[in-house]
């Protein structure tokens, strides 16, 4: 069995239901995302269109994150899912440097690496990932890509020639596919991030990795001191102080 994912971008309407469902199901902290839907505007009025691209871990068959992890915190499950053991993670961020898809984040509550696991805990109980269940147009298709009779395999066969993966040149062999994607939606270098064009202004870069209230000294003192547990409300306090992002320095 090898579990895979397919998103039909022709069906996705950018409702962000999957993003929210993922947040709730996995209790993903503020300022972190396992799954996000990116809006890209192509062309100029009146010849303009907007595309929506859900982005999550690709669960690569040759995963660079699994290879670089020094303690096997990132590891394969038998069903092909690249899982994370947060108890073992040392927080070196090697996986964040290795993942060509920027799919891994440093959880600000646990200070360990985390990412989409295709909702491995739900799969274990015979359920579908939360993002699949919530999608109102069934744009998210999930299943066994080694089973020819599965819905995802049938879908891939029906859309031969229009099935793509992100950055195939990286030879990571993703098990996450897109139908209806193009260079402009799947290649981050083919679109620009310009200040003034965002629906939300000044959404650019996070200037912290992991817990923003957890400095270098705190990392060492944490086991010996009472460390206030961080949750979404404490993250909101910090975000409201205006330190969360800074303007884009891109080119």
């Amino acid at each position, binding site marked *: 069995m090898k579990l895979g994912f397919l998103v039909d971008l022709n069906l996705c309407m950018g409702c962000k239901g999957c993003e929210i469902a993922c947040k709730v199901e996995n209790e993903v902290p503020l300022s972190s995302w396992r799954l*996000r839907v*990116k809006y890209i505007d192509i062309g100029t009025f009146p010849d303009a269109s907007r595309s929506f691209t859900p982005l999550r871990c690709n669960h690569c068959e040759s995963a*660079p994150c699994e290879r670089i992890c020094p303690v096997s915190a990132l590891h394969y499950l038998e069903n092909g899912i690249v899982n994370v053991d947060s108890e073992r993670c040392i927080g*070196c961020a090697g996986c964040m*440097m290795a993942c060509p898809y*920027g799919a891994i984040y440093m959880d600000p509550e646990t200070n360990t690496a985390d990412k989409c696991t295709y909702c491995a805990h739900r799969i274990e109980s015979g359920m579908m990932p939360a993002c699949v269940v919530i999608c109102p147009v069934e744009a998210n298709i999930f299943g066994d890509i080694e089973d020819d009779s599965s819905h995802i395999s049938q879908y891939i066969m029906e859309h031969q020639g229009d099935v793509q993966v992100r950055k195939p040149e990286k030879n990571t062999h993703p098990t996450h596919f897109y139908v209806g994607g193009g260079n402009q939606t799947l290649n981050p270098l083919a*679109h620009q991030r310009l200040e003034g*064009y965002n629906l939300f202004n000044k959404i650019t870069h996070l200037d912290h990795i992991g817990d923003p209230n*957890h400095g270098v000294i705190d990392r060492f003192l944490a086991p010996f001191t009472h460390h206030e547990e961080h949750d979404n409300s404490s993250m909101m306090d910090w975000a409201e102080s205006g330190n969360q992002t800074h303007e884009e320095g891109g080119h």
Partner: protein
Amino acid sequence: MESTIHATQAIVTLDVPIPEIIWGWMITLNMWAKSIGTGVILVGAFLLYRHKKDEMPNLRWIMPLLAFVFLNIFLLFTLTDLHQPYRMIHIFTHPHWTSAITVGAWMASLFLLLITIMLIIGIGEAFPGVPFKGCKLTAWGRKNGGLYDKIFPFVVFLAIPVTLYTAIIMAESSARELWQAPAEVMQMMWAAFMAGSAALILVSGNWSREARRDLAMVLAIATFFSFMMYMGEYFFSFKSAEAEATLEYVHAGGPYNIEFWFGMVLGFIIPFFIAVANMKSDNKTLLRFAAILALVGLYMAKDVWLKIPQMLPLS
């Protein structure tokens, strides 16, 4: 505004903030300190091959001392950069051998152990009363002076992979195209020769003129080739669209451009000419000045090369 954007251009209009610098100054310092820690051993071995020990009277203890200090700085910042520093032990209890981080941590630990033994022997022989009279550790060192010469070849051999493994970590960081080149391995090696010779120049006051000339030669060669490789990558990048886009953060001006060129001029061009001049006329002060500049410039160059690939959006 529309007229400034090409009709087929794609623009992100809604997305989440993306991470910026993940590996920052602590990793730069880590790499820089490791270059000194292994470099003094490699350059020290070269000097011992070329010259008699009498020409460099303090080399036997100061070489392991410098290596010990800078390897500890390297390991301290490796540890400090972890978000879960106490779990560093997992590298030894749950090693994952496909990871260059794991292999490197094991090799660096072994390297530091051997350096520590050399340091105890070197200090024990040179300063019998240090740290206090009757110290059993340095007494053991004095009795086992022969061990120094036995383990030194292994230390020199081990210094090479300890120098190079960071390049393998960078190669495994497959999201960062700029680091995906065999050139990175050579850059690490040149950085070690550069930093090692610079560090030894600073302590070579009472060495023979010939030994100091060799140090100037190593510094000149290392700065020259390292500079040429940086220039090759800067002007003739041929790797990929991602590498080109990464280099734009330097090409397009701004703080990284300034840091890069300051690093190149201070750390490579000026020290090269001073070192070449010193091979003919022995000017200790000027050579020390070149060594300090080389160490500062090396840090700046490494800092830019570490950070700019992290600026590029990956998705």
